[in-house]
Each structure stands twice: as structure tokens, then as C-alpha cells.
């Protein structure tokens, strides 16, 4: 989804067109599900009425975005609109790390999962002050666990290893 190169540089024309089409398709799907619900009763709107109205509105607005992007003056894309390879990799890895933490909270327990995340992410981002990393990781894992368990009385997952 790269911006088109206009006379004055990349524009948001294509990305906005794609976004608008995605919204139209999404709206159509939601509208289809909405009509399966009851639209109206003797006392007024049913469960499907508002969702249907809203999806029709969304489709109309998305169409306006599409029309504006296609026939209107091209909107210049910000200089950093398309992430460089390094930037995209950083974002991808961070997201993968967050998914991993979420999935590992149960099996590994909160302390271990968070400790690994709080050590791994700064190292990946190029920060090399190990004492600071370890301090933050310990506080952010064991310290927070203790605060929740002892002060707030909120149990957090311990995991299969009992850590």
C-alpha cells in the first residue's frame, strides 16, 4: 500500500482508496449480519436497526473518502509514511513480542514472561546498559507482582514453573 508518486512527491491517494474499499467491504459484511437480527418491533427499533443504519452511514462515508481520494486534489503523504525496512522490522518484532508475552503469561507466569520481555525489548532496540535493563526488568516483573499480590491483593498468574 504505497502512496503514489505525484508531481510533488508521494500522495495518500492509493492508501486512502484501499482504506475506503476495506471500510465498504466491512460495512457490507456488518450490514449483512445486521439484517439477520430483528430490525423493527411494534415498540420501535430492534437489535438490528441501529447497526444497519450505522453500516449504511459508514459505507456512505467510506464512499466519500474514496471519491475524495480519487477525484480530489492529491493529499501529500508525510515523509515517513512508508516505514523503512529497519522501522518495519522494529514494529513487527515489537508486536510479535507483545503477542508472545500475552500467550506466555499463563504457561510461564507473569514474572518470567515480563522479565524476558523487559530484558529482550530494550536490547533489541539497541539499548545496552545491562544494569539498568536488569533493574527495570526486576522491578517490572517481580516488583509489580509483589505489589499486586501483597498490596492490592490481586493474584497474577504464576505459571507451570511456579515462578
Amino acid at each position, binding site marked *: 500500500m504505497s502512496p503514489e508518486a505525484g508531481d510533488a512527491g508521494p500522495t*495518500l491517494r492509493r*492508501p*486512502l482508496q484501499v*482504506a475506503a474499499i476495506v*471500510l465498504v467491504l466491512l460495512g457490507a459484511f*456488518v450490514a449483512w449480519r445486521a439484517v439477520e*437480527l*430483528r430490525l423493527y*418491533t*411494534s*415498540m*420501535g*427499533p*430492534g*437489535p438490528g436497526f*441501529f*447497526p444497519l443504519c*450505522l453500516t449504511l*452511514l*459508514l459505507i456512505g*462515508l*467510506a464512499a*466519500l*473518502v474514496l*471519491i*475524495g*481520494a480519487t477525484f*480530489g486534489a492529491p493529499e501529500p503523504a508525510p515523509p*515517513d509514511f512508508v*516505514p523503512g525496512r*529497519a*522501522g*518495519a522490522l*522494529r*514494529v513487527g518484532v*515489537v*508486536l510479535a513480542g*507483545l503477542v508472545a*508475552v*500475552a*500467550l506466555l*503469561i*499463563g504457561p510461564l507466569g507473569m514474572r518470567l514472561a*515480563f522479565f524476558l*520481555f*523487559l530484558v529482550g*525489548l*530494550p536490547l533489541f*532496540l*539497541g*539499548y545496552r*546498559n545491562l544494569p*539498568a535493563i536488569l533493574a*527495570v526488568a526486576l522491578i*517490572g516483573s517481580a516488583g509489580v507482582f509483589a505489589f499486586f499480590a501483597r*498490596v*492490592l*491483593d*490481586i493474584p*497474577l498468574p504464576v505459571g507451570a514453573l511456579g515462578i
Partner: protein
Amino acid sequence: MMDSLGLLLGGFATALQPNNLLFALMGSILGTLVGILPGIGPVAGTAVLIPLTFSLDPTAAIIMLAAIYYGAMYGGTLTSVLVNVPGEAASAITCLDGYAMAKQGRAGPALAMAAIGSFFAGTVATMGLVLIALPLTALALKFGPPEYFALMVLGLSLVTGLAGRSLVRALVSGVAGLLIAMVGIDPVMGAPRFTFGIVRLLDGVALVPVAMGLFGVSEILINIEKSGGGSVHAKLTSLMPSREDVRRSVGPILRGTGIGFLIGLIPGVGAVVPTLISYVAERRVSRTPERFGSGMIEGVAGPESANNAYASAALIPLFTLGLPGSPTIAVIMGAFMMNGLVPGPFLFVEHSDFVWAVIASLYVGNVILLVLNLPLIPLWVSILRIPPALLYAAILAFSVLGAYTIGNSVFDVGVMLVFGVIGYAMRKLDFPAAPMILTMILGPLMERSLRQSLDMSQGDYTILLTRPISATLLVLAALFVVGTTLGVAAKLKGGDGEL
């Protein structure tokens, strides 16, 4: 009125006892600390700290809880300004200009004016609680489903005031928020909607993980994409507000206080409405409305004052009618009942000493927060000096924790991450996120109110126009939408705006 003042003085005598002062101080500190944790806003913060009060006598317990309440709200402001992660939905408004100020090296003035504005608003609202609670509550009693619907429509119409350069994109964001809010159980007929067989979705999509994802996670993803571990905040230029900052904040604080107080009298509206109205009002009266969102102190002072005035005023329906005005007040109401006290008109009669002590302690709590947090602003702002790689890791970890503890489930963490990606894409394409959050809250209230109104009128829509309060609010909403649309049309004609 003189009787009320005399009783209030008696309340101060109780609230200023050393042990009660100590509990108020502890509550303020704990509330702020818990409120700072991303995703754990005033509701959750107040709720999780209730057990700490079990061993206290009822007066001390409620004093401590009220202090926790205010402290958690200020903690939410801290995260909104410093790291763009709203502690609760109402703080999302503060993110718009507060975080922009932080990026310019002006986090200190933002936090200071938020604290000062909150203090002023809380003080005025507490005085209002003393002086005019009963007469104004009579007005609030006139609000039925049609009036609530009209108020929500007015609130939704104000979303257009949050549009940046593109009104249509703001509306897309707003409509998307309304649709997301439709997920779950239909509020009137109890039918599941758009749950796709997922049991967790029967409760709907939780607001806090959505807000954390849209604002906090997406912000960090954008920063990490751009600079990895490099700094993205400007060098700190000031810790305290300048004379100009104070001068510019006076009007917003006064207006925000009035807005928050009046709306706080209406049970069940929620803190988002007054903060939104305050923000839009400041944009309207400003000579440079196009600069909102880029670090205008008015965009922090007004909404924060409205939020705090609302918080105090929302106690009025609780004390006088036994109706909780907000989710956090509902938690406090639960604490009342756990301590053997039933909020409502008889509370003033049967436990007068207790009520006035609590009211006095609200003011004391406000003072404590101001005294505590103004000198601590350098400490809070020093959070920005933490190396970004460490800061991002900590914020993301706490966000995961905050989302997880909502329902002890990774499902809400997943919601937060999904909306983090959506928020990232929205930022790239200049779709504002604030309308989505706001409509997620207002939409269900509006739908429920409309359907209840139609139940009352046997399907006759004119009920919305034949009742004077609802008709007035609907006309105001229409005027606002027309005015905003004309303004946008003028901008498009002048070449300064997009669809």
C-alpha cells in the same frame, strides 16, 4: 444555607483530625500510584484499593476512598500527558494536547495546570455540593430517557468538533466506534449481536483496552518505527507554567468547572461528556482553533477542570438520591454499603456527621493532591528522561498487565494489540482516534435511551420533541452540526481541508 455551612464546619473538624488526614494522604498517594499504571484508571484503581479500607471505621474508610478516587484521576492525567496512554476514557481528551505539550518539552506546565485546574474545579464543585445540591437535584430528576437520548445526541454532535482537517475521516472514526459498541448483548431485547460465537464478546468490547491500544500502543509503535531507541521528546524547557500559561488557562478552568459541575448532576452521563464538551467549547472560543491538538494548554486546563468538577458533582446524586453518577461513584457506593451506610436522602438525616465529614474530606483531598503533586511535577516529568527503549518496554509491559487484569484474560490483551495496529494505521492515514473512543461510550447510552423512550411513547418519535429539555438539547445538537459543517465547507472552499 447557614445550617449547611455550620454542618460543613463540623465536617472539617472531623476530616482534619490527624488520623483522618493521614488516611486522606495515604489514599491520595496510593490512588496516584495506581492511576499511573496504564489501563488501571480511577474505576479499577478505586475498586482494587477498597479492601485496604476494610479495617477502618466507616468515616475513615470513605475518606480514604475519596482520596484514592481523586488520586487515581490525577494518576490517569499523568499517563495521558507523559506517555499518551489514557488512564480512563475521559483522560483521552487530555492526551490530545497534553501529550503534544510533553513532546514540546512542556509536560511540566501541562501537569501543573491540570493540577491547579482540578483543584479549583474540585473546590467549586464541593462548595456547590454544599449549597445547591437539593434544588439542582430536583432538576436532574426531570431527566428521563428522552432527555438522556438528546444529551447523548448532543455529545455525539460534539464529536464533529474533534475533527482535524478532515471531517469525513472523523465521522468514519466516530461511526466505527458506534459499531464497535454494538458488539455484545442488545441493551433492550437481550439478543447477542456480532459476537460470532465468542463468549467473551457477550460482554462487548471493553473500552479500556481499546483506548490503550488506539492511543498508547499505536503511539509507541509509531515512535519505534521512526527512531527505535532514540528520543522523541523535545528537551524539557520548563517545569512550571508561565504567566502566559496561567492567563490562558483561567477561562478554560472557569468554563470547564461550570460544564463539569452541571453535567455531574445528571446521573449516568459519564465523565467523557463534560470533558468533550469542555474541549470543544475551548476550540470554539479560541482565536486559533486549528492549533488544538498541537499543544494548546487550553485543551488540558478545560477538560481536566471539567473532569474534576464532574467527579465532585457526581457525588450529589449519590448523596441525595442514592444514584451513582459514574462507574467510579458506583464503586464508592458499594463501599458505602459495605460499611453499613445506604446512600440516599436518609443518609443526610440519619448520618449527618458522617456525610459532612466526607464532604469536607473531599476538599481536604483536593488540597492534599495539589500540595503533593505540584512539588512532585519534576519527579513525574523526569519519567521522560528515562531512555526511550526502557520507557517503551515498561509502558508496553504495564499496558499488557493493565489489559490482562480487566478480566484476568489474554482476550483483552488481544483487543488492545488489535486496536494498537488499527490505531497505527489510523495515524498513518490521518483518521483521528478520539471520536472512536467517545462514540463507543455514548453510542450504547444513546441507543438504550432511544429505545426506552419509544417504549414509553409506544413507538411515537415525537416524544423527543414534545418534552422541552430534550427538544432544546436536540436543537442545540442540530445547530452545532450545522455550524461545524458550514465551517468545514468554508475551509474546503478556501483549500484548507480534505474530505
